[in-house]
């Protein structure tokens, strides 16, 4: 049966109305479901369908082994609304997909990833597209079943022996007894006029329309079983345990390896970390220029820039660039310590926050350059060490730029070269 046919069948099938006491019966006296007519070709079926349609019947249907072109028209079946449902579902999917991403990424939980915008149409099209397709496809599938009132566990025609050939090479039309126009004699006369090869009374289906209990039990059992993992997860949520957690997917958690600061029986001293071989220096670790690498001349902080660093325009630009990357979040663009992290910490008002130093204060101005350099290298108070992230050359460049920031605080128009003053206005 094609979708259209089965749809019309169900749409017109109204088995809830039980036959009344004077309802038509079969020859054996059983309640009548309908009168079934059998045809041998699609052409015969089409002709019969047109006749039944023109006689004004509404609760009837045709059955065929394959879709018969033109049968909808011959039966007078209106066009399905399924395409509109699918279109509506597609539009809903589009809105839901885009809206969900807009809400999560752009409003509720903003998270900066690789400098991309929080919300950008381009990045969200694939998911939007998939959800649109998903909604449309599920609606097309589910809508088809629902409009056809499928699945149907039981039907009166299941018991008709001859009807089995409907999936093979026979064509049938069935006028149901619940049709308002149904009349024991007139209907049979009409069917005889369509010259069927066989006519048969179909007794009403007396079996329950409900699913067999077995299916209900299995479904209930499966549904309950599915709750077990969820229930377990809920019960252990927030509890403490001395047992190691359950590893469903162990990933690489249990690989064999030696970790720093742990033992290793392979070596005589039993340590996993190997000390540096005596009398050697690792590549790049020589750092024999104390002024350049540690900011110290003798035991005192260096008051001048080291000879390996040339404080020029290029170094200043480099320092500014590095400062903007590493220092601005706390110390701010002007160096006054009101960067975005500091502002956010003050908003949280948790009391444990040590505010970043204002780099333009007099006591910082008086610090030797070597000391500033050392602070960048090793950090101070809750400022972390940047020695591993920023090369010595760049650390000196930052020191140079910090000096420029300090100077800028006390600057006035006379410090600006005459040629550039016009640009300030």
């Amino acid at each position, binding site marked *: 049966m094609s979708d259209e046919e089965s749809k019309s069948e169900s749409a017109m099938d109204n088995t809830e109305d039980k036959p009344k006491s004077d309802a038509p019966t079969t020859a054996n006296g059983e309640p009548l479901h309908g009168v079934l007519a059998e045809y041998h070709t699609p052409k015969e079926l089409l002709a019969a369908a047109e006749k039944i349609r023109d006689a004004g019947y509404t609760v009837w249907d045709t059955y065929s082994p394959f879709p018969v*072109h033109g049968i909808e028209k011959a039966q007078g079946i209106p066009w399905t609304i399924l*395409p509109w449902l699918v279109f509506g579902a597609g539009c809903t999917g589009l809105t839901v997909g885009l809206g969900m991403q807009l809400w999560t990424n752009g409003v509720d939980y903003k998270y900066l990833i690789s400098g991309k915008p929080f919300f950008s149409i381009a*990045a969200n099209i694939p998911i939007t597209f998939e959800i649109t397709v998903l909604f449309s496809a599920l609606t097309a599938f589910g809508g088809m079943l629902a409009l056809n009132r499928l699945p149907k566990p039981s039907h009166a025609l299941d018991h008709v022996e001859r009807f089995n050939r409907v999936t093979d090479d026979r064509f049938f039309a069935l006028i149901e007894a619940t049709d308002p126009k149904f009349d024991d004699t007139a209907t049979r006369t009409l069917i005889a006029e369509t010259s069927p090869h066989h006519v048969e009374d179909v007794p009403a289906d007396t079996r329950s329309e409900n699913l067999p209990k077995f299916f209900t039990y299995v479904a209930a059992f499966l549904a309950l079983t599915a709750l077990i993992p969820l229930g377990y997860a809920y019960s252990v949520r927030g509890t403490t345990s001395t047992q190691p957690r359950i590893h469903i997917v162990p990933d690489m958690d249990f690989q064999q390896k030696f970790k720093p600061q742990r033992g290793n029986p392979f070596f005589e001293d039993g340590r996993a970390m190997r000390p540096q071989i005596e009398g050697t220096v690792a590549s790049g670790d020589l750092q024999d220029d104390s002024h350049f690498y540690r900011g110290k001349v003798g035991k005192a902080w260096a008051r001048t820039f080291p000879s390996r660093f040339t404080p020029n325009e290029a170094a200043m630009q480099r320092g500014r660039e590095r400062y903007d990357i590493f220092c601005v979040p706390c110390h701010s663009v002007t160096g006054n310590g009101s960067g975005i992290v500091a502002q956010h910490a003050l908003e949280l008002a948790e009391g444990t926050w040590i505010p970043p130093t204002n780099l333009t204060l007099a006591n910082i101005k008086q610090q030797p350059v070597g000391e500033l350099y050392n602070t960048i290298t090793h950090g101070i108070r809750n400022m972390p060490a940047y020695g591993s992230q920023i090369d010595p050359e760049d650390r000196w460049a930052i020191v140079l730029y910090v000096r420029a920031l300090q100077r800028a605080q006390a600057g006035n128009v006379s410090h600006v070269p005459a040629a550039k003053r016009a640009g300030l206005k």
Partner: protein
Amino acid sequence: MANANNTTDDVIVLNEEGAKFGRAMLIAGLVLIAVGVGVGLSFDTRGLKGLLHSYLIAFMYVLSLGLGLLWIVIIQHLSKARWSVVVRRVAEVLAAGLPIVCALGLGIIIPMWLHNADLYIWVDHELVQNDHLLHHKAPYLNVSFFTVRCAVYFAFWGGLSTFFLKTSVRQDETGKAELSGLMHGVSAPAMILFAITLTFASIDFLMSLDPTWFSTMFGVYYFAGCIMSGHALWALSLMWLQSHGHITTSVTAEHYQDIGKMMFGFVVFWAYVGFSQFMLIWYADIPEETHWYHWRFEEPWKQVSIALLIGHFVLPFLGLMSRWVKRKKVSLAFWCIWLLIVQYIDMFWLVYPNGEAADRVPPSALVDLTLAAGMVALFLGSAIRRAAGINLIPTKDPALSDSLAFHNI
């Protein structure tokens, strides 16, 4: 329902009026191209560089129509399609306009041999020697190899389209079913070679306009536009024939609906491919790739990009969705014309904004449109000439009765 006997009272040979129209188109095409080139060389302030750009756009546009129709013929044989038999001859005839389109390709190749680097900077020998990347690509991007490749493409497309038309016409005379088998057999390797030649041709003619840029999806992008506009031209040609009293009963709304479905499919496919190409480049954010889009997102090309998105996808997607739109000639014709216009805009958008703004030539409506109209007229004129004297329906195709009786659910 259609029935197999209704070709008997159908006009299936091009009438005198149609043949005349074909001749007129051929002459009009030649005249328009001559006028376009003449104006481009004389009055147009953009000079030769502008003319070559206009010429390339028109050429790629009309090539996309021809290739789209050639693909349509191949895919019908490859899938042994039965629904399309009655409309296939018109596609075969249109695809057979490809040889003359290929001849127009000389207008791109000849300036290269005269060392003109207005269109393709990789023709400039000195520049290539001093640019490491271009030097590296020179074994592929050089005039001789380019010419050899073009010769291969043109020979293949021209030969294949002629083969399909001639074999199909031969079947009209002999009625041999084996000829269908032959065309089915040829279609499989032909489809593979078609994919390869189309991809490389789009790389050569369009992508190498900016020889530093690369996108592995570019061939598919051009392909999607080709197939979409091929179907549009196919449907319009059938409507033109029917409005002049040919094949009025054999070709029905069922055939139009299927052509419309394919067109709709390729509207979506174009958007899918276009977006896939864009998103990967946008996400990776690598300068050697992003500049191509950057140029197209700057004013005034930004407007064209947005117009393309809306006109090439959003509107036709919604407009062509309903089956009733595809079954009614008026509404289908509207979208066919619409899509043929946006396909031109797509070519326009691919060709003009290449290189930094200072190195570009501005569009010239007069030269652009004269050349495009001329080439389309030449192509159609040539196709109509090939249709003269043969049946517009493959009358002896074994699947013809199925096609005549074809019915969508």
